[in-house]
């Protein structure tokens, strides 16, 4: 493989990482909003949450991508494949993040709620001082898993003509027929990205660990 191809793949890996990063930012916001819906006082809102998560999780990312890719122009929104791709990954990751955050909230031990209430904390302070720090710690490992999934799912966007790592690999294969080397390098790049995110997550987990905290997840 020429150094030109190698450079191209490295650049494409950068694009994949940027796509995933944008999707993670968007997905975290979407997930947080959905989680608020999941704990709404209104049964209708809670039902809407369940239906949305069911729909997004029950559909392949590729089908979601094709739907958005074709549906947006029909709605007179010409975004191009990149924005459509980020939107799709964000929607997909958002539903997964929502389940992660919801699990984190449910894992908060009951005494935490009770003591917060008995201290007379207003809802805002309760959320900031009690709920958020605990959810952050409980939800971090699965959150990192979803981030890794976002990187891997970004490869699907190659099918809606987003130029990223998998697309670049196919392009180079069509030109050079070097199937094994090109896909091997692409796999190595994905591996490094995913493992890097995983390691960063583990590091953060250790950093956030509170020594002596006895609040085991409920």
């Amino acid at each position: 493989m020429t150094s030109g191809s190698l450079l191209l793949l490295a650049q494409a890996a950068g694009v994949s990482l940027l796509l995933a990063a944008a999707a993670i930012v968007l997905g975290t916001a979407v997930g947080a909003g959905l989680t608020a819906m999941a704990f709404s006082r209104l049964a209708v809102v809670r039902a809407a949450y369940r239906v949305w998560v069911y729909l997004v999780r029950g559909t392949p990312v590729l089908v979601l991508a094709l739907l958005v890719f074709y549906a947006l122009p029909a709605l007179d929104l010409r975004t191009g494949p990149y924005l459509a791709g980020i939107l799709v990954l964000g929607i997909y990751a958002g539903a997964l993040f929502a389940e992660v955050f919801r699990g984190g909230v449910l894992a908060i031990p009951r005494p935490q709620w009770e003591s917060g209430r008995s201290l007379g904390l207003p809802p805002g302070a309760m959320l900031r001082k009690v709920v958020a720090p605990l959810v952050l710690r409980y939800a971090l490992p699965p959150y990192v898993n979803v981030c890794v999934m976002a990187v891997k799912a970004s490869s699907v966007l190659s099918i809606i003509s987003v130029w990223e790592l998998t697309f670049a690999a196919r392009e180079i294969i069509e030109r050079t027929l070097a199937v094994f080397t090109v896909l091997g390098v692409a796999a190595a790049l994905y591996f490094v990205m995913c493992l890097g995110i995983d390691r960063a997550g583990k590091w953060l987990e250790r950093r956030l660990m509170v020594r002596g905290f006895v609040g085991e997840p409920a």
Partner: protein
Amino acid sequence: MRYSAWFATYGPSYLDGLGWTALTALGASAGAILWGCALLLIRLAGGRGGARAVDAYVQLFRNTPVLLPIYLIYFGFPLIGLPWPAVVCGGLALVLQNGAYVSEILRGSFKAIDRVQFDAARSIGLSPWKTFRKVVLPQVLVYSIPALGNQVVLLLKDTSLLSAISVTELTMRAKLLTEQTGAAYEAFLVVAVLYLLLVSVTEVIFRTAHRAVRWSR
């Protein structure tokens, strides 16, 4: 267009795609569970080297997207003299990837088996192979039913990626119909509903199986 006319025109095409998707998912799921069991056996019986090899395999497949093995097998195998049909290539890629996840699921369940059972198995004279087949595997599989269900759902959704290597499953059908009719998102909406249907059926099957073997706890 009236519904019956719509169905007469496009129904067979979607049904054919649905059949291919279901068949691929079923075959690849069975293969992935078998491969996962084999990987567990290698991990348990292969000594330190075996466990390390399985770890490396699992790490590799966990941290790379499924599209890569799909392309690798589909474009690579003809170069080494194995021009297999696209479904087989794609199915094999799904088996290899999901087998890695299945082996991790089974490993988790394996930890739930009480050590005393291994002493008991040895004391009644079971060979290691028989212990694996008669004691370990049945319990591990039963404990794993919910997690395996999740994995099969993921696999089912990943069969959509085989459209990239020209397998005429659901997603490919929608693409072809889009080219014919120009009605793009309608076609993908139909396909999305069909996937939801397949996913729901899979979930019901695994939930029923889980309930049916409650005796195990």
